[in-house]
């Protein structure tokens, strides 16, 4: 590759990267500035921590923080937990594996709002799930399953939508593990769980981190699933932010927006670090490396 003058590169980067930096920079700046009293659309503007104090003093703010973190964390963990066994199963191609892979990844192509509608349709009062549960005798009468207060329906929908994405990332990572490494671990007596914990997870931890981070940020900031199938007694942070904006309370909306951005960043870093710590290279991985080296030496 050639190395042209930095000015020439800057001119080339300006329309794309320049536009992104200015736009996103302005959005982040205005959110932070409005949260501390600047750029008020009505009334005087000036530095003030009043809006933060009000926000932090509200119980509903902390409920929204806890609830969004709960949804973000469980959506990420469950999506990755469901995707791993599927990625391992589809690691080596077999008859029909491509079809299965396509079916599993299909929700990637379906819009979130459409998915919410399909789900509402199935769990409605006279919907299929209720009818099936009454028919099998589990329920005596149909029950209201929509907008359940435990957010089970919402988490199910989050996993439905995000698991295929985790699967997409993990499939590539799992396929790149050499078969010899897995065979070596098996020869050393490692069972399925041990092989996953000590070989597969440490070797695919980067893809796992990427999947955890992306699903976490997406679910933490969810608005559409929460307002269509989520519990009605709690608000997600996006919903809470829109609640303030809808009433013209921009400074408080900005406080929630800044919270959302900070939690996305902190939460994503923590999830990535935890995954790295749990699945860091274990002694058995070093044993396998030693075993492989010896085997290669013996062959040559």
């Amino acid at each position, binding site marked *: *590759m*050639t*190395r*042209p003058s930095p000015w020439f*590169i800057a001119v080339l*980067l300006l*329309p*794309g*990267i320049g*536009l*992104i*930096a200015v*736009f*996103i920079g*302005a*959005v*982040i700046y*205005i*959110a932070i500035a*409005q949260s501390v009293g600047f*750029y008020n*659309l009505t009334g005087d503007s000036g530095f003030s921590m009043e809006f933060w104090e009000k926000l932090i003093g509200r119980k509903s703010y902390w409920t929204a923080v806890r609830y969004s973190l709960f949804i973000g964390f469980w959506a990420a963990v469950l999506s990755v937990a469901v995707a791993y066994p599927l990625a391992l*199963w589809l690691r080596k191609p*077999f008859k029909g594996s491509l079809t*299965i892979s396509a*079916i*599993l990844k*299909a*929700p*990637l*192509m*379906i*819009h979130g*709002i*459409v998915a*919410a*509608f*399909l789900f*509402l*349709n199935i769990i*409605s009062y*006279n919907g*299929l799930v209720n*009818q099936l549960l009454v028919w099998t005798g589990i329920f005596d009468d149909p029950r209201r399953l929509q907008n359940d207060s435990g957010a089970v329906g919402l988490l199910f929908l989050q996993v*439905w939508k995000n698991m295929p994405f985790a699967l*997409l990332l993990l499939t*590539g990572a799992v396929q790149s593990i050499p078969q010899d490494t897995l065979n070596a671990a098996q020869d050393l007596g490692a069972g399925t769980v041990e092989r996953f914990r000590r070989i597969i997870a440490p070797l695919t931890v980067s893809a796992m981190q990427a999947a955890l981070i*992306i699903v976490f*940020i997406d679910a933490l*900031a969810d608005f*559409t699933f929460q307002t269509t199938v989520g519990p009605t007694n709690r608000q997600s942070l996006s919903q809470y*932010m*829109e609640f303030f*904006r809808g009433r013209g309370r*921009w400074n408080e909306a*900005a406080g929630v*927006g800044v919270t*959302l*951005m900070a939690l*996305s960043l902190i939460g994503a870093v923590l999830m990535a670090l935890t995954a790295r710590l749990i699945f860091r290279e274990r002694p058995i991985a070093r044993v396998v490396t030693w075993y492989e080296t010896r085997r290669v030496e013996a062959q040559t």
Partner: protein
Amino acid sequence: MITPHILNRALMILLISVAILWLVIPFTMAVLWSLVDPALPWTPDNLLPPVISTYRWSYMWENSLLKPALLNSYTLAPLAALLTFAISMPTAFAIGRYDFQGKEAVKLVALLPLVVPSFVTAIFFTSILYQIGLAQYRFATILFAHIVLFLPYAIRIMSVSFEQVRIDHINAARDLGASPWAVFRAAYWPAVKPGVLATLLIVFIKSVEEFAIAYIVGQPGFVTIPTLVYASLGQDFNRPNAAVLSLILAFPNVILMLFLERLLKSANPAMASGKGC
């Protein structure tokens, strides 16, 4: 003894059953609900709607905001695709063809629109529009926001495409005395063509599907298909009408996505997803 072959067969049967529950039943239900006749409602004691009718489809076409929503969505999407592509080209060319200091940082900055939550972007973009007095230009401002939000996809796909242009092809064309246009035709175009089509298609799909910006910036009165479907799931939830709108949003995009997947596989397998950046 359970052999891997039997295990795979059992797992496949299980998975296909799950897939039917996962996809086939929900979509079949949506299609059936969209064909319910208002004169003869579909009651729980009937397995299928008593009468199949296309009344809901014609009713939604004539009496809802469907026409303006389709017009807005399908005008925004091609414009966003063309403009995003055009704006991404110089940056993608620089990343794909040149080595420069800070290239990795530039690639990270390019991902920013995907990292900041879309509702935060939408709400504070609206705030900026109010500050500078441009909030009434809904179509233009939504278009502008779509261009910036989808630039990461265009930059990523096009820079990978530019990387694949072989320098020996360019040199060979130049050595043979080709004009700049002929060099482009012979050396660049064959390598970047799938990327160009993939970029246009992915931004088109993303724009048609985009909800947060259209919903927040578009208030009040500007509708796109996703905001219309969302509204139909709200307080005035009417299942047959929502079914019609959901299918109108879902099907064209699924077909386009399948086409995109084929295109991306031929261009670069790592990008075989809308989220592949």
